[in-house]
């Protein structure tokens, strides 16, 4: 292709990518380097139906002047990234110097919001992803072997978890695991422990959130694998059968290698999806025991009266970096495979 033709061919894509991907990221990055102007505070007397007290208010005129001069706020460099709400370099260093032994150090570090969120986010990602991959393949193979009559309805029912809005699904589970709910009450009976509560204990909350994640994402990997199974070459399969391969051997040596590109694809999507886990934590009111980077961003932006744009920007940038780090091994592998096939 001529350079000129190539340029015109790629232009629409390039424009869309710059407008919808590059520019927003750059703007979030610039925002993350700034913090708000100092407010000019004045002491004043306030009265309400219950009495009068001394209080503090903002001197609006002086503050408005500052804001007009520099609408982006004060330049803060990377200090938002390194402060206590994020990477907390000073606090981690302090913990390293003062704590005796690794457990005490880790305890201090996991007390910091960013690292606490990171631990749960990574655990969630690395448990949910393999489970969804393996179970999805199992369900796809199972459905593929069903008689034709049942296939349609089974596929439809298997897709339901994905159709349910994540927040609604999580809320439903929240009430089911309640002490009076069907799952909570059953577990109490099985273990004969009336005070057993899935919401009060940290590990049980983690298990609940992770179970929810697997349930919700399973249909995605199932349907992709199911589509892939329709393309398995019949002659390879038949020759394997003639060679005396069992069902299991056919699965391992013929079907799985054939589906490998799909495994890479699903892994990529799942890693990205799971790293920004959010809805189950909110829906299951699990903030006491589990937190994630997205939950931190949500907390920073939630109140319209006092959103922390800089902090939210910094957490967003670090989420992007986190996803990039997670995806690197998978991408390197894909690149190698691609090159090998190219030669």
């Amino acid at each position, binding site marked *: 292709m001529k350079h000129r033709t190539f340029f015109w061919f790629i232009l629409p894509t390039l424009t869309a990518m710059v407008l919808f991907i590059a520019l927003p990221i750059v703007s979030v990055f610039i925002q993350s380097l700034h913090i708000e102007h100092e407010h000019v505070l004045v002491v004043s007397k306030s009265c309400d*139906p219950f009495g009068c007290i001394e209080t503090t208010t903002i001197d609006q005129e002086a503050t408005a002047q500052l804001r007009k001069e520099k609408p982006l706020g004060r330049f803060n460099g990377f200090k938002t990234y390194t402060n206590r709400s994020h990477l907390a370099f000073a606090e981690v260093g302090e913990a390293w110097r003062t704590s005796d032994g690794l457990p005490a150090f880790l305890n201090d570090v996991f007390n910091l919001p960013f690292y606490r969120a990171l631990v749960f986010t990574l655990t969630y990602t690395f448990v949910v992803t393999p489970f969804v991959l393996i179970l999805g393949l199992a369900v796809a193979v199972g459905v593929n072997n069903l008689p034709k009559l049942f296939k349609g309805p089974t596929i439809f029912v298997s897709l339901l978890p994905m159709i349910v809005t994540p927040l609604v699904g999580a809320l439903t589970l929240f009430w089911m695991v309640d002490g009076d709910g069907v799952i909570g009450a059953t577990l109490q009976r099985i273990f004969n422990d009336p005070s057993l509560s899935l919401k009060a204990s940290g590990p049980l909350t983690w298990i609940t959130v992770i179970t929810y994640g697997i349930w919700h994402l399973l249909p995605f990997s199932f349907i992709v694998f199911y589509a892939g199974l329709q393309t398995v070459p019949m002659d390879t399969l038949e020759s394997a059968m003639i060679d005396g391969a069992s069902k299991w051997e056919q699965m391992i040596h013929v079907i799985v290698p054939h589906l490998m590109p799909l495994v890479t694809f699903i892994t990529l999507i799942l890693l990205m999806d799971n790293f920004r886990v959010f809805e189950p934590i909110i829906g299951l009111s699990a903030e006491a025991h589990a937190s994630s980077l997205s939950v931190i961003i949500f907390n920073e932006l939630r109140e319209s009266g006092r959103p922390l744009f800089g902090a939210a920007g910094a957490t967003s940038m670090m989420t992007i970096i986190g996803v990039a780090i997670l995806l690197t091994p998978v991408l390197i592998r894909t690149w190698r495979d691609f090159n090998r096939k190219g030669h």
Partner: protein
Amino acid sequence: MKLKSIITAVAIVGLMASLAFSADCGPKGKSVRILGSDFPAIHAVAGTAKINCEANANEFTVTHKDDTRLIMNAALKPNPAEYTSVIVANSTLTQLMNEDLIRPLNDLVEKYGAHLKPSQLITLDGKVMAVAFMANSQHLFTRKDILAKAGVTKTPATLEEVLDAAEKIRAAGIMEYPIVTNLKVGWNIGEVFNLFFLAHGGTHFKPGSAVPNINNEKGVAALNSMKALAEYAHPDHLTQASNETQGLWEAGKAAIGIMWGSRGAVILDEEGSSKEVTSNTVLSAAPTVGGGSIPAATLWWDGITIAKNIPDDDAEATFAALVSAMTPEMVAEHNDDAVWLIDGFKPGPAAAGVSATARAGAASYPLIPYIGPMHEALGVELVDFLKGNESAEQALADAEAAYTNAAKEKGFLK
């Protein structure tokens, strides 16, 4: 018969028309757009204002939404603003004032507010920023039948008595977890800390500055009070907010509660609960702590504000319409919907708790520009102490550190 009913109908319509005519609605043909939360008292005020003044205005809309605090700043920022009035409470007034989105009302009060009580006016350095019409606070709910069964004859008035009663109920085998209170992680747990911190005589900030002042013996005492209560609350307490605690109460699964006064009427009505629960529920003042006399509660008011970024005539018409609703007649019609601060209010059983708490001298929720980030930090950082993972001092130090961070980014601290 038919004629009679027609005459009555005409008479009623005429009466209403004359009432509407009698209200002073300010300049004619203006636009009135009100935003308020979605609960009965606000329906009463905004609805009455609409009946009184709709005919006088060119446009008269009332929007009710949950969580108005999440949208009100964005709605008032453009010029002209999306709404001419937002109905606020203590905490949301600060939020609007921090961004200079509402106007002083002194001249309007002078012109239209002759019937308002001076105590209804929320003033800052003499500037009227809001006009309050109802009060709210947390207070004690008790089940007198269960307390009597456990051998407690007097309604508990102090935290120590509350804990003692809870222990007796547990010891008698009536309930394992007799206490309910809103300890859900986030805003609610932060608010419970505020109650006990203020009752122990604490102040959130060093005087005249934004420097936090919670990591001290008063903060520790407040946390210990919370933990003592949580011992008797259901193990799921960190996930329970108003809807859950109200549910437990109406299901008869709790005997002592510290809940919002605005839930009083809802709990005492016939819906959602049994006669046994409603007839035995007693509403009283929030408990005091540590031998002090201040109830562990924050007093809240709801009131009207007028947007800054709107034409003066619209502001005048909006204010006139809203204060025209703050009359003894409106209160008489909606007496049990709220604890009204307006003349003519007759406190019923549902209002007993809030009235008693206010009389006993509870503190108002702090009207300080940087209370927001503080409340947020408390909501996130205190939970580790209640879970038993860390000491009270550590939890308070964490909360101060988280607040300091946010306050620095917001420009309140250097």
